[in-house]
């Protein structure tokens, strides 16, 4: 055991002494995760504008006008979608910071300035973007009041509105007789104002007074998206699993090459002529790779949690995910190392193997973005399964039991890879 530990320590030390190798193994995946997290999540957005997705569930002219004003508002980048669910999905993924919902019945309530259900706007924000929530509330109120301005400028709509309001107040038991008298005077004044608008004149708007009556022409409801264990809480929760997979790939490449390096530089001969068995030598190499895989995963997770507000939904499952994905990738490394006779072969085979497996396994594009046939093909890639177990533990909230299948697949890949690599290594060694 001590010899295996010595071999592993030697390999880790060699990895750290080779700055380029260490960079691509430990630092590059971190930079990758941070970069893509910022790109997809807005953490690095340089425009200073808030990304908002809007959904029009009403479809009326008032709703269209509201959305047009929203799109023209300063400080907002507005895109639209057709369903509320898709809008919420975009918020959860961190693609936008908020969803604005123009609910059904908006067009009708837009006329209820003085009575009835007020104009209602809903906004759903990323819980991690509280600062933006305040800005959005202000913006939505501003735009909603702009709709009221339009109402005042349309005499026909205003007259109908006043008639409804007058009737509503007169019939209301909550409004006292003196208040009704005052409102009657107010509505009469407004009638005159509208009449003068029709005649092309202008007048001073009157101020409403009263007690026991809350005039609330716009109802802007801003809520935070409820934490959903089955969704990432921000874009870094997606980018860091990708970074972890790339880190695992870096370990595979580094240690896969190291065996070929030892073979071509003669140190493997010295190892094989020492008292150690071939199995011990391979176990030492595997242990070094395993430790490096664990280190790179723990390091990325620590950064994700500490700096990017990523929450680990299932810590226990994550421990298993880190250990088992490391085990699986040790198998990939052994396969690569055992089958490579030279550094050139290892590098070439490594690039081909790793890139293909990474591409189809979600190392470059998240699997859920892939077409169905590619999702099926991705099942042969350990990258997919590593992504599944890391994401499953990180933000999908899956338990160890729920992750049993991907864990089993990764363990199987580790065992098969190790066995094939060991056989190939012995075959080359016995020449």
């Amino acid at each position, binding site marked *: 055991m*001590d*010899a295996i530990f*010595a*071999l592993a*320590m*030697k390999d880790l*030390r*060699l990895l750290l*002494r*080779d700055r380029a190798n260490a960079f691509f193994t430990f630092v590059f995946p971190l930079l990758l995760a941070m970069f893509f997290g910022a790109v997809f999540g807005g953490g690095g957005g340089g425009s200073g504008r808030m990304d908002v997705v809007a959904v029009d569930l009403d479809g009326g002219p008032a709703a269209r006008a509201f959305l047009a004003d929203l799109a023209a508002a300063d400080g907002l980048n507005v895109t639209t979608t057709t369903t509320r669910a898709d809008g919420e999905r975009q918020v959860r993924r961190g693609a936008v910071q908020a969803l604005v919902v123009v609910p059904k019945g908006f067009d009708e309530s837009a006329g209820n300035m003085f009575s009835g259900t007020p104009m209602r706007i809903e906004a759903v924000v990323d819980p991690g973007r509280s600062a933006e929530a305040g800005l959005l509330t202000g913006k939505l109120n501003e735009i909603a009041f702009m709709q009221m301005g339009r109402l005042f400028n349309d005499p026909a709509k205003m007259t109908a509105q006043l008639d409804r309001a007058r009737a509503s107040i007169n019939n209301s038991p909550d409004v006292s007789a003196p208040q009704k008298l005052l409102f009657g005077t107010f509505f009469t004044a407004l009638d005159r104002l509208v009449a003068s608008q029709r005649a092309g004149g202008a007048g001073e708007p009157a101020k409403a007074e009263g007690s026991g009556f809350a005039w609330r022409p716009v109802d802007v409801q801003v809520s935070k998206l409820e934490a959903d264990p089955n969704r990432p809480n921000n874009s870094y929760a997606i980018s860091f699993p990708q970074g972890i997979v790339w880190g695992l790939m870096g370990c595979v490449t580094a240690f896969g090459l190291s065996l070929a390096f030892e073979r071509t*530089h*003669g*140190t493997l*001969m*010295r*190892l*094989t*002529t*020492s*008292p*150690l*068995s071939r199995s011990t030598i391979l176990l030492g190499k595997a242990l070094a790779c395993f430790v490096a895989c664990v280190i790179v995963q723990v390091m990325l997770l620590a950064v994700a949690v500490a700096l990017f507000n990523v929450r680990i939904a299932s810590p226990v499952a994550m421990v298993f995910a880190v250990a088992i994905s490391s085990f699986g990738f040790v198998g990939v490394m052994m396969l690569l190392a055992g089958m490579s006779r030279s550094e050139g072969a290892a590098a070439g085979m490594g690039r081909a193997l790793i890139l293909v497996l990474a591409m189809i396994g979600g190392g470059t594009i998240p699997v859920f973005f892939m077409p169905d046939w590619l999702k099926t093909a991705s099942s042969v890639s350990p990258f997919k399964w590593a992504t599944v177990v890391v994401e499953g533990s990180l933000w999908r909230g899956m338990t160890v039991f729920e992750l049993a299948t991907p864990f089993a697949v990764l363990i199987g890949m580790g065992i098969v890879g190790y066995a094939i690599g060991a056989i190939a290594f012995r075959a080359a060694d*016995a*020449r």
Partner: protein
Amino acid sequence: MLILRDVRKAYGKTVAVDGLSLRVEAGEVFGLLGPNGAGKTTTISMAIGLVRPDAGSVELEGHGPPTDGNVRRLIGVAPQSLALYDQLTAEENLEFFGRLYDLRGKRLVERVHAVLDAVGLLPRRRDRVGAFSGGMKRRMNLAVAMLHDPPMLLLDEPTAGVDPQSRNNILELVRSLGAQGRTVVYTTHYMEEAQRLCDRVAVMDQGRLMALGTVHELVERHGGRSVVTFERGEQIEHVQTDDPLRAISGALSGHAPGPAISGVRIERPSLESVFLTLTGRSLRD
């Protein structure tokens, strides 16, 4: 100490070693000579358990075959290729290899210090091996072989490509190892090294043992006659003889016509002449 019995090894259709039998005695410095492709490295590889023979047997007398890990503890190897980690310091290299041989703690520190001192690299122990010259790396290669204090060392061309100072250091080390009673199997292309160091020499060619014996025996058997060269002014005369002194005496006392003898040179048969006699003068590429 090391016994090879009718050993045969082929790589495909190429027979690298063909029925080789050797016995290297404990405490002797044994030279293994031969042109390129003679089968020396394959023989060494079988002797250290790296390669299994197709036929025959290899064993360390009283211990078993070198494919056994415990038997390999008795062997120190300095391979022809420099088997060192360039990114590690001299000390780190030795500490790592020492742990493979179960050296620990104070014993490991002592051995590392001792071998670094022996090869003259103690002042450079904290430098990375990648920064070493070729000669220093060769000495480090030898230091690793000596680290676990084995009774037998297999040194495959340990002086290849080194400067005269490093070569001298290595030769002195090998001589001292022999003096300490260790068994050393030494392959080289430098005949004068073998002549200077080896108690016995085996000459191989095409996988077969061509000759085996002490340097003196081989020279006696295969070296041919001495050549005495007489210079008479511009005229040069070569005389092959078994008794150079008698030939010179005869020439000086004789009354041969022509110029008087102005110079005499004796070329005694050497290991190189033995080598060329046994393996021929054609190029081996």
